């Protein structure tokens, strides 16, 4: 909605003082000057690198010596590279493990905040502060909480005699640890976004539901959730893009070892960007790194489209019509 309005724009009016219009270049140069820094920087650090990365992905290059054209070899290797596929699998699993509980928790927190009158300011700050603190620092803190032998979490498990978990060594537990850190960081942010969405829903709708005899649960699933769809879409799309670009948490949690191994035991927490980083900047395979970058781009594009269609794509007038009673249950 907002985007369409923005693009429509508005037209500046002619000078009201009746002065004669200046010739084109004298009238427009200040505006072009004003917008030029962005376009200049984008050309040098955006367009050129992206174009250059296509070229680079068809090269074998260590960054120092001569670049050697090798045709489609990087891509051919990419398709058969089990480490690459493992990194895609890891990324998708971690993304799923973090996004699904996060969207659910964000909705619950937002709903609780919405119905609460007191301490609202305190809760908002408390839930938001993880999002603005350093990822590196907090990953180090949580990393020692998850530590296998002597971390706080395993100490607690030991205290209640329920066995220890290899949070930083077991393939699944490793992914859960990374997902938990992302949830911790982003749940409050998304809850605030959902809260803003909730507050935008007219209270008349809830009044009407009450008059019709809807209970809390019915109201939540039949009214709140459907009307929040645009917001849930925003949250889902941004978490998907963020999730597919995950790097810092697994890199800090499982430091690179002397052989250049990343992503912890068995590379079970190697994400796509971490793999790209390893190939390009640890092993100096610049051409291959560029090819991995394009694979990542493709993946993000595909997921954005899927997300869009799943959650919001089909009926755009979901807000405010209230005509889709039976249909919403099918989703």
């Amino acid at each position, binding site marked *: 909605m*907002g985007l369409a309005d*923005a693009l429509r*724009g508005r037209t*500046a*009016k002619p000078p*009201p*003082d009746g002065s004669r219009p200046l010739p084109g270049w004298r*009238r427009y140069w200040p*505006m072009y000057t*004003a917008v030029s*820094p*962005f376009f200049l*920087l984008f050309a040098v650090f*955006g367009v*050129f690198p992206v174009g250059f*990365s296509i070229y680079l992905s068809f090269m074998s290059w260590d960054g120092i010596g001569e670049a050697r054209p090798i045709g489609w070899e990087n891509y051919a290797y990419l398709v058969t590279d089990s480490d690459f596929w493992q990194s895609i699998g890891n990324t998708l699993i971690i993304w799923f493990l973090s996004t699904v509980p996060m969207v659910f928790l964000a909705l619950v*927190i937002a709903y*609780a905040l919405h*119905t*609460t009158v007191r301490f609202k300011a305190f809760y*908002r*700050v*408390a839930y*938001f*502060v993880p999002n*603005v*603190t*350093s*990822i*590196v*620092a*907090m990953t*180090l*803190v*949580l990393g*020692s*909480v998850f530590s296998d032998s*002597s971390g*706080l979490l395993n*100490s607690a498990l*030991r205290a209640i005699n329920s066995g220890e978990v290899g949070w930083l060594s077991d393939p699944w537990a490793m992914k859960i640890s990374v997902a938990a850190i992302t949830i*911790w960081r982003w*749940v409050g942010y998304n809850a*605030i976004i959902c809260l803003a969405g909730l507050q935008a829903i007219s209270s008349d709708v809830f009044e009407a539901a009450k008059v019709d005899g809807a209970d809390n649960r019915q109201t939540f699933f039949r009214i709140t959730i459907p009307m929040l769809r645009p*917001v849930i879409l*925003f949250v889902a799309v941004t978490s998907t893009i963020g999730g597919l*670009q995950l790097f*810092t948490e697994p*890199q*800090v949690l499982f430091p690179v070892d002397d052989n250049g191994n990343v992503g912890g035991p068995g590379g079970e927490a190697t994400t796509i960007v971490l793999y*790209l980083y390893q190939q*390009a*900047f640890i092993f100096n395979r*610049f051409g291959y*790194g*560029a090819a991995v*970058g394009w694979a*990542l*781009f493709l993946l993000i*594009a595909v997921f954005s489209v899927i997300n869009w269609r799943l959650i919001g794509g089909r009926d755009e007038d979901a807000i405010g019509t209230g005509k889709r009673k039976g249909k919403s249950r099918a989703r």
Partner: protein
Amino acid sequence: MRAETAARSRTIVGHAVLLLGALITIFPFYWMFVMASNTTGDIFAYPPKLIPGSHLWENMNKVFDGIDFWGSMGITVVAATSVTFLVLLFDSLAAFAFAKYDFPGRRVLFWIVLATFMIPLQLALVPQFVTLAWLGWVGSLKALIIPGAANAFGIFWMRQYAQGAIADELIQASRVDGAGFFRQWWTVGLPVLRPGLAFLGIFTFFHIWNDYLWPLIVMTDPGKVTLQVAVQQLNGVYTTDQSMVIAGALMSVIPLIGVFLIGSRHFIANLAAGAMKF
């Protein structure tokens, strides 16, 4: 009567959920302080020590011995403030032009700004590094500052803000007074846009302060890195002394929490409003 009880029990449940959640979100900050103020032995003993100790200064001093803390802090502060200043300057200029002036190609140019949102930074990571190497900027502050000096998010956000906040009459009045584009931007635009600029400024500052991947790649000189990279290096070298590593982490986080607590109300409200506009 029944409805009242139901409402009260719902409030209690709501508060219980919120309080539990808030405790979980805040706990790592408490634990960070506990770790930084105890010895590693105490923390990893069984049962572990759960309350703050008296070794904070000792651990912090070890951090100063381990890394060039103030040097890294200096690099981070200079990079974050420079980028913030440039972003506010360039983005507000562009946003002002896009929001309030008509010029040939305006719509196409604005479409391009929006389209650049879609390109993930990581796609261009390798060639960006190569570009910087050609320019001879690798390892220098320029590599941290220049590429991020103007961004699409800021232009889009400020443009939305400017359209709503700046009245056309104000601009017309200043034009009658003979002010050109840049003077109108300075005297009419900036004062009105101040709240929007404050949000964009804090947002940019946090982003640059916290960034890890980009400085990790371009600041190749181990003695000249940002705070985030320095703290991670500390962890790489002194893994056995976790308390000291966490003390370093704590020191790198305190400025951010301070800035956030001062501007939090404003910041959170704007962020939510920004998301709703998409």
